[in-house]
């Protein structure tokens, strides 16, 4: 355990839940989410003195967002680290240190995207890879497909097992009125969907939506006096392993193994203490590998684990209860949404999908092509 255990809490959350919103820019989505998160915390824009954001379409996100929110002159700390969808948990790590050492008092982590209404494709970043680009792999799906193919080769994982991840996500989504996809989905539906990059079909891929999300962080002693149930951050850790998929040390083991172990050590919790889990499911293989790398099942047994129904409603491990990136929303970079669902569950505010008595939640985010990994452990007030 470290001095940071429980020192910082999530005081407010904001989620626009506008998954298909033509006529709004990415910044419009972000700004609405920031407003909602501050209102949820009982704070205002004037209270924010630290800003954390990343954008797939802007190389200067902190400057753009600070100007728009009207908070530029009051900022004392900021971080625009860009490591893909895991960026926002890297921001959480950065904000925790800054808050704990008094470099700032109210931190806003925020994101917005109009990916769906802007054309439905992932906006390519100016980040050329001359040794991979000539081979015309689809970015990012082919990288994840290569990892899935290797996992199948090493461990006998099957497409049917991967399909179970998408089916479980859909069943959770059907309990979340805000989830974008609600239609019934079967293993056969996933298998017979259009193959895009073998062995992954369209139904193994996350949604393409718009959306905006934000969280407000303060030191825990201040959060106690604010209006929401206390949700302290018990531990957080980050790890990176590569940029290009061919440089990944092993295609079947991610840096989640490092970020997860370090986050759990900081929090002083074991895998068996965790009541609720959010795993960044950009593709079905992600959920399966993160279950293994974080320690919820042995390496190579992720396929059998998900095929047993363990992560679906009624299973013994509640995973991606909002429906995940596969069925709830995926606005380009999804990491912040994992944190938000963890907070909702720990507040006991998840309605039909509520995990009764949830005290400790793990939120895990991924970025690039399995390149960056970040794990946060959140708790309720009783876990301090």
């Amino acid at each position, binding site marked *: 355990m470290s001095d940071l255990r429980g020192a910082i809490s999530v005081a407010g959350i904001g989620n626009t839940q506008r998954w298909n919103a033509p006529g709004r820019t990415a910044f419009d989505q972000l700004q609405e989410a920031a407003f909602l998160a501050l209102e949820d915390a009982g704070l205002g824009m004037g209270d924010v003195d630290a800003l954390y954001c990343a954008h797939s379409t802007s190389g200067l996100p902190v400057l753009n967002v600070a100007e728009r929110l009207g908070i530029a002159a009051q900022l004392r700390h900021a971080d625009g680290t860009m490591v893909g969808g895991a960026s926002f948990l890297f921001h959480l790590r950065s904000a925790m240190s800054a808050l704990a050492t008094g470099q700032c008092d109210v931190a806003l982590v925020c994101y917005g995207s109009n990916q769906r209404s802007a054309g439905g494709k992932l906006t390519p970043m100016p980040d050329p890879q*001359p*040794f*991979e680009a*000539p*081979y*015309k*792999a*689809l970015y990012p799906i*082919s990288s994840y*497909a*290569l*990892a899935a*193919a*290797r996992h199948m*080769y090493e461990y006998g994982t099957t497409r049917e097992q991967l399909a179970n991840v998408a089916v479980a996500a859909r069943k959770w989504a059907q309990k979340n009125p805000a989830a974008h996809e609600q239609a019934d989905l079967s293993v056969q539906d996933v298998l017979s969907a*259009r*193959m*895009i*990059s*073998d*062995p992954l079909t369209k139904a193994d891929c996350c949604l393409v939506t718009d959306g905006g999300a934000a969280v407000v962080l303060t030191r825990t002693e201040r959060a106690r006096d604010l209006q929401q149930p206390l949700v302290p951050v018990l531990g957080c850790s980050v790890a990176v392993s590569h940029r*290009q*998929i*061919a*440089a990944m040390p092993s*295609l079947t083991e991610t840096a989640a193994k490092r970020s997860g172990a370090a986050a759990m050590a900081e929090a002083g919790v074991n895998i068996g203490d965790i009541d609720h889990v959010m795993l960044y499911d950009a593709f079905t293989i992600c959920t399966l590998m993160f279950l293994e790398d974080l320690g919820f099942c042995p390496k190579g047994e992720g396929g059998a684990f998900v095929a047993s129904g363990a992560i679906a409603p009624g299973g013994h491990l509640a995973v991606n209860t909002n429906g995940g990136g596969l069925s709830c929303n995926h606005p380009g970079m999804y990491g912040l949404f994992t944190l938000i669902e963890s907070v909702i569950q720990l507040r006991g505010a998840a309605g039909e999908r509520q995990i009764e008595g949830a005290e400790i939640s793990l939120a895990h985010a991924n970025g690039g092509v399995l390149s960056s990994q970040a794990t946060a452990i959140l708790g309720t007030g009783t876990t301090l």
Partner: protein
Amino acid sequence: MTTTDPRFDGPGPEARWTEMLKRGVFAVQHCIPCDTAQFPPVTTCRTCGAPDPVLIPAKGIGTVYATTTVRTREAAYDVSIIELAEGPRMMSRVEGVEAENVRIGQPVRARINTDGEMPLVVFDVAGDLA
């Protein structure tokens, strides 16, 4: 008199690698101090941090480490990660067989494909090694 560090003089490793490829040589980098090969070519050794790993002709053989068939409206083609005999892996394409018949573990042999604007390292299934 120069003010720059001579260990880093001359064209950068990517430019030198590309120049060798244009002359028909597929190269990998070798770090002499730690005896490790690396790809793609960069300015320092990723294993020990030493400057200026040297470019040497690759053995040109390897095995398929991972493979996918990319399916677009126009075509289906292979994208594979090849583990080179020297150790490093690289993204490439296995040619000469249907994309869905490329198998992990298959031995492959490098070839420089000059069909396009730029020469490209691709691989053929090495039947005689299978």
